């Protein structure tokens, strides 16, 4: 009982610190959203990668960067309708 309690507390703490972490009840939507956001931020965080993509798509790096940031809003579309 006490262990379970501690485990949930630790998870809450972890989740407060890292948004991308999950738990058994994480939905596919949440997970994929975070996944995409992390991906975009990783692109932006590695300038050589960003440059590579800029060359490939033929857009300036700054524009691509903005576009990637824009994409972070609802990266996988609208959240699914609540069923209940």
């Amino acid at each position, binding site marked *: 009982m006490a262990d379970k309690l501690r485990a949930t507390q630790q998870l809450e703490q972890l989740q407060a610190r*890292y948004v991308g972490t*999950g738990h058994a009840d994480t939905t*596919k939507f949440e997970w*994929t959203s975070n996944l*995409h956001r992390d991906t975009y931020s990783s692109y932006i965080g590695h300038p050589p990668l960003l440059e590579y993509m800029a060359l490939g798509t033929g857009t300036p790096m700054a524009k691509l960067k903005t576009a990637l940031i824009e994409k972070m809003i609802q990266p*996988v579309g609208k959240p699914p309708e609540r069923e209940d």
Partner: protein
Amino acid sequence: MADSEFEEIRRLQQERNAAKAGSKTFDPSTQRENTTKASLTDALDTTLYDRSGVDRFAGYNTSIPADGDDDDDMTDGDGTRRLVGQYTATKEMMNEFAGGDDDTDALTSRAEAAQIQDRETEYQKRRFKRKLSPTRKDGFANGEGEEEGRSYKEIMQERELEREEERVRRKIEEKLKNGEHANGSEHEATLKRDTTPEAEASEGTRKRKKRWDVATADDTSTQENATKKRSSRWDVAAAPDATPVMKRSRWDQAPSLTAATPIGNQGLVTPMHPSSAAIPAMPLTFGLGDRNAPLSDEELDAMLPSEGYKILDPPPGYAPIRTPARKLMSTPAPMASSSGIGGFMMQEPENARVLGKQMPTEIPGVGDLQFFKAEDMNYFGKLVDGADENTMTVDELKERKIMRLLLKVKNGTPPMRKTALRQLTDNARQFGAGPLFNQILPLLMEKTLEDQERHLLVKVIDRILYKLDDLVRPYTHKILVVIEPLLIDQDYYARVEGREIISNLSKAAGLAHMISTMRPDIDHVDEYVRNTTARAFAVVASALGIPALLPFLRAVCRSKKSWQARHTGVKIVQQIPILMGCAILPHLKGLVECIGPNLEDEQAKVRTVTSLAIAALAEAAHPYGIESFDTILNPLWTGAKKQRGKGLAGFLKAVGYVIPLMDEEYANYYTSQVMDIVLREFQSPDEEMKKVVLKVVSQCAGTEGVTSQYLKENVLPDFFKSFWIRRMALDKRNYRQVVETTVDLAQKVGCGEIVERIVDHLKDESEPYRKMTLETIEKVISALGAADVSEKLEEQLVDGVLFAFQEQSVEDIVMLNGFGTVVNALGTRTKPYLPQIVSTILWRLNNKSSAVRQQSADLISRIAVVMKQCGEDSLMGKLGIVLYEYLGEEYPEVLGSILGALRSIVTVVGINSMQPPIKDLLPRLTPILRNRHEKVQENTIDLVGRIADRGPEFVSAREWMRICFELLDMLKAHKKGIRRAANNTFGFIAKAIGPQDVLATLLNNLRVQERQSRVCTAVAIGIVAETCAPFTVLPALMNEYRVPELNVQNGVLKAMSFLFEYIGEMAKDYVYAITPLLEDALIDRDQVHRQTAASVVKHIALGVVGLGCEDAMLHLLNLIFPNIFETSPHVIDRIIEAIDAIRMAIGPGLVMNYVWAGLFHPARKVRTPYWRLYNNAYVQSADSLVPYYPNLDEEKLKREELYIVL
């Protein structure tokens, strides 16, 4: 040191050792008979005063008690002879009763000491006089704030009333003092009109503070008072919705129906609390005690004839009264105290029969409690009345529920407490603030409350405050009444707890409400209430910010109505910096301006507290913020010149704290200004003043602008004249202050100057004074070094220190430290004195008192380095030999010190030139390793370890093996340092004699039962492997794993775990060798086995990151992965750690391939551990996960950017 002397000491020592060998006990006859020193207690001239006769001092007191208890007879000690014999009890008899508590039961006294009230001062006990005020209106509630409760206006009126009453009371008292008797018709003495005795008598009875609503005997006051009182009661009745107040007398104290809630709520303005008012006032024995206890069935059986009588059933509907509170009140007992009717009551010891009756062992619905006290019955009695819960209303049920939870929290076992606390917190809003606080707060007012209970209840309040939020408003004052006393508790943690609650409370209730709640208490008649309120206000300020409170403070500090309000206002400002420290800096100007005008207040008390507040502000602001004090500098200085006595102390303190903030020039000027006053006050007999002037002197000395020249010329002579006197050493507080101040002065004027002035005191006849001197010298020299000490002074100093050291009657660490510091500071300059010092040490090493021997051995360890510096190797050799011969010492403390001394000699001399030679020394140490005393163990193992490290070749391998066996026992030591030293020593020994034998010993030790010993053995194996290269150890270890015994196999795995942790990257050569063993271990049935194997894997994997062992690691991962469904916390933790470590070794991509499969598994039990792995990977290497996320083929989920190819 002369050789002859040395020989003599050795001879004595041998005699002693020989005597010891004969009898285990000490033989004093061999001790220091032929000393050349004169005894301090004997008359020197033995030929004149012959010593062979009977003891001349028999029957005398040979010492005078230090505490001065029996100086009472000094009052009539007029020096004349009495003509009449005095008959009095003997001293023994009187002392027997004076001491008193020698023969009381140790356990009961301990239990009582646990109660908070037992260690409270008279002042702190005044909290019991406070009452829980009735609920107040929430003036700030929006919407329907129509709940009952008193408004701000009513409370202010009531305070007004109290003040008026206090004023009248004072007036009466004054009149009485002046001789006008309160009652005009009192008959006067006919013979002569001497008023003094009368006045004194009445004063004596009048001392107790009386509340207006307590009917007292002195209602026979003047007509004027009577009218005043009546008119004041009108006021209350006229207040909007107060219930008409009746004059309360003893007779309307109806017993309350609910014992747990404050009683007397009906019809009384001030409710009474069951414990604080009614019950303690009445002797407990009266209604409840032994004498009046109901007869038990057995007693009745014994008393009444068994034949001819019938035991009737109780009539239907009869329910016995179970709550003691009601029983207590059933007959109004005459009150003791105030009215004076009570009379003397015999104390009765508590009787087990009565206790047994009262104390239920189990409360229905609560379960087993840790304890249940008699007082708890007052509050929780309801729970045992056995009423039917089905017939109760919701409110009653709620009340019982809360009661049960509180009882669990207060008296329950830790797990019970935890769940109950959680329930209380979670349901706080459903229960409601009223029902909760009505039960918690009276509990906190209980007199017999203990620390733990208070802590728990306070914790409950803290938790529910969060949940209740603004619902607490009506109860704010009640909570404050209960919590404020915590702010002046002696216990630091209680104070912190109190602060936390008040700060949470103020955040929940809001500033406006806090102010309106506490405002009436600011000019409360009782100083205690004002004091605690001021402290609480300071906490509010720190919680809600100083700027928010500042306008209010300004208004209070300028209050024209009462000086008490101003006093409290300033006190709040004083408390704020004490609480917040330098955080006050941004608001310093505001705070100073707020209290500035009060420096010239007409009330002396206000002026004093203002100066103290300024001192506190300046102390907190140091070294910034002088500009904020500009406005008050002038009044402060003129004040300091005008004041006398207690007021002056405060002003001086403020000046002392403000000066260090100033820049050089001003500081210098103001110091010289204030120093005149300070020098004058050096002579003050007042302790408080002494403290303050010392503080001011050290403050001034520390300031930039004050030159050492100035201090030398103007301050030092007076300072030493007034404070370096023997009397100062006798009082602990003075002692400390003087030492500190002297050290501060030395910082400025230099070490030599100060030491020169006090060095003579080292030879003073008063021991405390010598101690104080040596402590000062120690501090000064350790801070400033001895470069400043001239040759002559050096001589005096060493001489004095030696004298002080030799003449101590109680061995004191101060002396030892002082000696050590002086010698170390003088360094090579000590050389000429060393023979003398060593001779002293040697003589003292031979002393019969163990403390003396221990201290001299300790001194050797302190001065060993200096002796080496002075090149006194031969002396050290002699010391070494003497110490060596003392290794038979019986007292472990002393033996430990001797070993320590030997170790420090070995350290500075070096193994090679050690006297006695190591080959003699070590065999003597082997048996000592068996000693169980911690100090001995620590010092021996240190010494042995050092020898094993530096000079193992001096001793035969067999001796080292013997030591190995002894060391195994040390692995069980409680102290970590000893275990660590033992482990390291194994490493050194293994290095010296090769690992084989040591390893065999250690591997055998893996078979022992004790867990700690096995663990330490495993560690030792790891260390041996590290020092002697792993290939010498691993084969033997792996071979040992074949022993079909779980403990051994586990031990081997554990040893490997440490081994791989220690060897790190070296592991890469052994990975493939060890893999089959790990395979076997990882598929074992035993959980612990797999757990330990997992930790081995973890350490290997972390060692081989990037070294090309990925295939082996992947293989191990395949074996470990199925274990992720383990549930035992230790096992799963190790497994997860191992997987994390392997992820480091083979990269997240491969490991995550295992993880993706389970993240969205239909079974939650499967998903949970997979998410744990995912979270770990995400936290530790989120960025490197990006390329390995699975391909999501659905529209919108694709990561197109990854498909770009140039």
